[in-house]
């Protein structure tokens, strides 16, 4: 019964976060704009060489997701800080994991939508040929997004009480995300290049392993970082 109540709370938080985001629009527009801008700048910096563009596509894509994602994570808690809503959220009964799960799912949906735009722009700008095994590539991208979002949502909660949260979040998040970014980028690169040697297998395993570790660790630790 308590578990079902917590699931209901999680759903309510997802609905609330997506509804406020849909109505304000400011968050998604700025995040998507930043992602596209990063890709455009990379595209111009690399020049017209098609092969070079294709080789750099995976790296540029994940960097765009990372930088734009940080904006999104900060914003997801800014909504709670305005008007003391975080305080009200923490006063509701129920498990703390329900709050984290709600925030995590809302951020996953948000970053996935942003990823769709970034990938679409990236395919055009970097002259990427869509590989035959594109569903597997989608799976890799989702694994990468889960890793980035789980850690991003967690550290955004941790830094939300700090006045310097905009500075603190990247400082905490970027070093921890190196293995996920590296694995996501290498696996994506291998798939975009056809992956004739099955080189992506080890990276995908590493990515999945880090996702599991991050998800378990952040769910367990959330209670301790959100309470003062």
């Amino acid at each position, binding site marked *: 019964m308590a578990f079902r*109540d917590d699931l*209901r*709370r999680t*759903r*309510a938080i997802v*609905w*609330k976060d997506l*509804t*406020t985001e849909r*109505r*304000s629009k400011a968050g998604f527009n700025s995040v998507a704009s930043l992602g596209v801008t990063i890709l455009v700048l990379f595209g111009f910096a690399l020049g017209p060489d098609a092969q070079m563009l294709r080789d750099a596509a995976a790296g540029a894509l994940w960097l765009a997701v990372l930088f734009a994602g940080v904006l999104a994570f900060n914003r997801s808690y800014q*909504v709670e800080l*305005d*008007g*003391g*809503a975080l*305080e*009200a*959220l*923490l*006063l*509701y*009964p*129920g*498990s703390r994991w329900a709050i984290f799960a709600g925030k995590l799912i809302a951020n996953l949906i948000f970053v996935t939508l942003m990823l769709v735009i970034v990938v679409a722009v990236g395919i055009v700008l970097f002259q990427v040929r869509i590989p035959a095994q594109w569903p597997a590539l989608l799976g890799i991208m989702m694994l990468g997004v889960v890793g980035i979002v789980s850690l991003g949502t967690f550290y955004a909660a941790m830094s939300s009480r700090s006045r310097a949260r905009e500075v603190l979040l990247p400082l905490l998040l970027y070093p921890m995300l190196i293995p996920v970014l590296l694995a996501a980028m290498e696996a994506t690169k291998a798939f975009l290049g056809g992956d004739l040697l099955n080189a992506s297998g080890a990276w995908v395993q590493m990515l999945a392993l880090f996702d599991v570790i991050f998800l378990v660790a952040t769910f367990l630790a959330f209670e301790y970082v959100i*309470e*003062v």
Partner: protein
Amino acid sequence: MQSSAPLLSPDLALDARGVARRFGARWVLRGVNLQVRAGEMVGLLGHNGCGKSTFMRIVATLLKASAGDCFVYGSNVKTEGDSVRHHVGFFSHVPGLYDDLSARENLAFAATMLGFPSADIDAALERVGLTHVTHEHVRGFSAGMQRRLSLARLILQRPRLLLLDEPYNNLDVAGIALMNGFIRELNAAGGAAVVVLHDLVPAEGVLDRTVTIREGRVHVPTAADLAHGGASPQAITVPAGAAGIS
């Protein structure tokens, strides 16, 4: 007079024993002892910065005490936070609402989070006089309207221990009457309340007693204090205790 073991009497809505809290090197609370029985309405007075709100936040589980113990209906606020949150309703300085949701949506969200998804939201909105703005976004509400909406959230919750931190701020005469009506209703149902106040006038006829926090402890008012309006003549003092903190 005070035993070190918690007194888990179901009659005690709040049992704070030597509650202390420091921020950095500064001790804001130095050992507050306060017992509030079920059905009792207590006013909490004191100068700005004396620790009233800090104490309320500790009881509400929003802040951890640096020392001491605090129980709400027998549940320890440190170790049984979820159980405490089922009993406590906290009306804070800040409205805790979402600007981009309507009044009704804010209450629907609160009802789901509280575990009462089928709560009568329309009745609560009608009670606080906000039926005419049910579907309007909170962003356009005045401070007083936001306070009323926060009160509607408490009405949905019907807590057993009400913690009100300067509840009359931004409320007009009708809003104050509404607030007092809710406190009395809760009292009639056997609930308790701790009300942080700077001015006793709006709470006239609502409180059973008042206590004062001074220098981080519950203070025993002297005749001079009473003459300066530090506490009402009806104040019943609570023995000041210490948590071994100088």
